[in-house]
């Protein structure tokens, strides 16, 4: 039960930050998303995001900030293995499944439904 509560509080907290960015700082939805991705990447780079995932589970791994962390983790891991070039080749290592799925599924949806609004 404790796991669920922690996931709810941390995940909800990240979403609350996003809502405040839109309502108070008047950020557009795109800027809000990008801000959270960058924040996740910075935290990941400082080694703080992985402990957050350990602490809150899906509460930290599901929000978009986790995507920033995943980009950085991929780059770090690959650069340790192959050197500087690994920063470039590793950046989409962890996230490639998510990006490919987004591309493929949105393409399939566009074939079936009318994509223009």
């Amino acid at each position, binding site marked *: 039960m404790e796991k669920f509560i922690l996931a709810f509080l941390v995940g909800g907290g990240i979403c609350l930050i996003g809502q405040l960015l*839109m*309502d108070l700082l*008047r950020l*557009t*939805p795109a800027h809000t998303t990008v801000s959270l991705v960058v924040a996740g990447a910075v935290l990941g780079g400082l080694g703080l995001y992985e402990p957050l995932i350990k602490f809150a589970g899906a509460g930290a791994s599901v929000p978009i900030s986790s995507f920033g962390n995943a980009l950085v983790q991929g780059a770090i891991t690959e650069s340790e293995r192959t050197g500087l070039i690994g920063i470039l080749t590793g950046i989409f290592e962890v996230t490639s499944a998510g990006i490919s799925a987004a591309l493929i599924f949105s393409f399939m949806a566009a074939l079936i439904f009318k*994509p*223009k*609004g």
Partner: protein
Amino acid sequence: MLKGHQSWVFNSRPAVLACGTVGGPFEAQGPLAEDFDILHDDMWLGQESFEKAERKMLEEACEKAVEKAGQKGADVNFHLSGDLMNQIISSSFAARTLGIPYLGLFGACSTAMESLALAAQLVDSGAARMALASTSSHNGSAEKQFRYPTEYGAQKPPTAQWTVTGAGAALLGAGEEGPRVTSATIGRVVDMGLSDPFNMGAAMAPAAVDTLKAHARDLEVDLFSYDLIATGDLGRVGHEIAKDLIEEKKLPFPKERFMDCGLLIYDKTQPVHAGASGCACSAVVTFGHLINRMKRGELKKILAVATGALLSPLSYQQKESIPCIAYAVSIEI
């Protein structure tokens, strides 16, 4: 004839020969559904795009107005029209179909009264026997151009307004009976520095009040002589601000008869946040609902003050504030 600094009095009292109003499915669920000539149950009107659907509604409104007046399009001298799309494509493309000599206007949501004032001036001065004033807007096409594409599903704050899907047209000419256009006041562009396109009502309210004040001053008219003063699309937020501003300027006005078309067209159960907006808002409410009420004898003299926010998506992206305008037209029966 010029009266005061920025107003016209139409001594020949051009008659509103007939009006045509068209609405979409959401408008059909509203309290003014009865006042539309044509209602569509499909946002697309069977067309390939929202833009084409908007154009079709505008054509229908114009054709309906001409038909109801028992006239032929070929006998109408001029067609004055405008809309919200880039390069006013809805109006120009509809004018291509109609074939009436055409003057394209841009006054954003104030176009209904901008076109009506100019059409009345043309008829009154003898420059036209019959002139058609029209405008249109479409929720889907306006959202796409000014905010986000609808399928993007972006959140909206409570101050945001709902663009009306519809079109309205009024045919003016010499006539013995029916509502008459008696005067008009051309507004100044007013910009109080607001830059939030999700709060247009607040941006437009000062323009509405500026025009209202000029109208009272130029025509030396007591605003209490109007049975109804209807602003275009200030919505809940803008309407309250407008009332406060008028009181601040110590301009006596009939508060209980001061309304907003953006608050009339939808009822409280429809999720439109602060109310309605769009060119069609003041057009369908004035040319449909209010003219019908005048014909039923419920209103004798009204002042329609259509308000427009003259921003573009580019000016918004470059973080410019929103210049606004309002045109006031008095109609009597």
